């Protein structure tokens, strides 16, 4: 019975069978008069349904569809699309303003690590870390490159000029 049922399922959709299935079906039909009868009935049924005269569509169908389409409110353009032309320059201006604010704030704000470094830094010692004012004046006035200076202080001019002068 199951075997017949399987072939009846195949008969019901015979037009879409693969060549291999069609061959198997034919082999079965040769030896099965009951399925042959079913095959003939299904084929007749398929022809009947295929040849069934279709109903004419009412002439008002297309006009009704088009009327409904034209009468329907157009889908609203979303606000972000409608204002896209205004939004783009606004967004660019806002970005520029933010960048400017960030730059100004960044130049004024000292990073915490830099703040610690500044707070713990030792003040420069005159004459040791930096030449004192008098030594600088002597350096400027002595004219270390002149031959008269070399004659007075010898060739070790640098030492001479940077020697701290007692106040």
């Amino acid at each position, binding site marked *: 019975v199951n075997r017949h049922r399987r072939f009846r399922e195949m008969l019901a959709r015979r037009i879409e069978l693969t060549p291999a299935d069609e061959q198997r079906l034919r082999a079965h039909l040769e030896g099965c008069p009951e399925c042959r009868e079913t095959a003939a009935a*299904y084929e007749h*049924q398929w022809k009947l349904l*295929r040849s069934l*005269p279709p109903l004419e569509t*009412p002439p008002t169908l297309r006009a009704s*569809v088009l009327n*409904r389409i034209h009468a329907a409110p157009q889908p609203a353009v979303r606000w972000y*699309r409608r204002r896209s032309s205004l939004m783009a320059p606004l967004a660019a201006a806002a970005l520029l303003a933010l960048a400017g604010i960030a730059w100004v704030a960044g130049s004024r704000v000292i990073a915490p690590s830099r703040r610690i470094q500044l707070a713990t830094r030792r003040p420069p010692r005159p004459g040791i870390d930096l030449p004192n004012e008098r030594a600088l004046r002597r350096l400027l006035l002595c004219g270390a490159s002149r031959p008269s200076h070399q004659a007075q202080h010898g060739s070790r001019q640098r030492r001479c000029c940077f020697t701290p002068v007692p106040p």
Partner: protein
Amino acid sequence: MQEDQHAAGAAVSAENHLVHLMDEHERAIYNFMFGLLRDTDRALDCTQDTFVRAYEHLRKGKAINAAWLYTVARNRAMDEFRRNKRVQPDLDALEGVPVHHKTDESLAVQQVLECLSPPDREVLYLFDVAGFKTDEIGAMLGVRGTAIRQRLSRARERFRLLYGAEA
């Protein structure tokens, strides 16, 4: 402004596409709806709704094919079944069939179809008249192809019994 022009262009394009679709499928969809509902007014309503939905779909730039139309139409018919638990068959609809086609045979087929359940009519129409394959019908109805093949086989057998009784 540009969005408005773009929307108007899309609407015209969608309408042209819709007219093309209706040229090709409106008769088949209307007959499918009548095949399921057996009522010309409801078939007309469902066909209209199907094409209005098709237009909305086209407006969004989405593609539509025959399977999509049949699926939407079928779902609309199911809504109609749910809304009106029992849809009375409209025997006057046969008046729409051209006189030279209205043979005893086609009347007998129509009477047999009246007696079949909507799922049986549906699968027979989609396979025999609309020409879809069982796997395609399964995809449309959201069930496996094997289930459609079983349903088709049962529908064929019921049709055969009823047609034999009618004959």
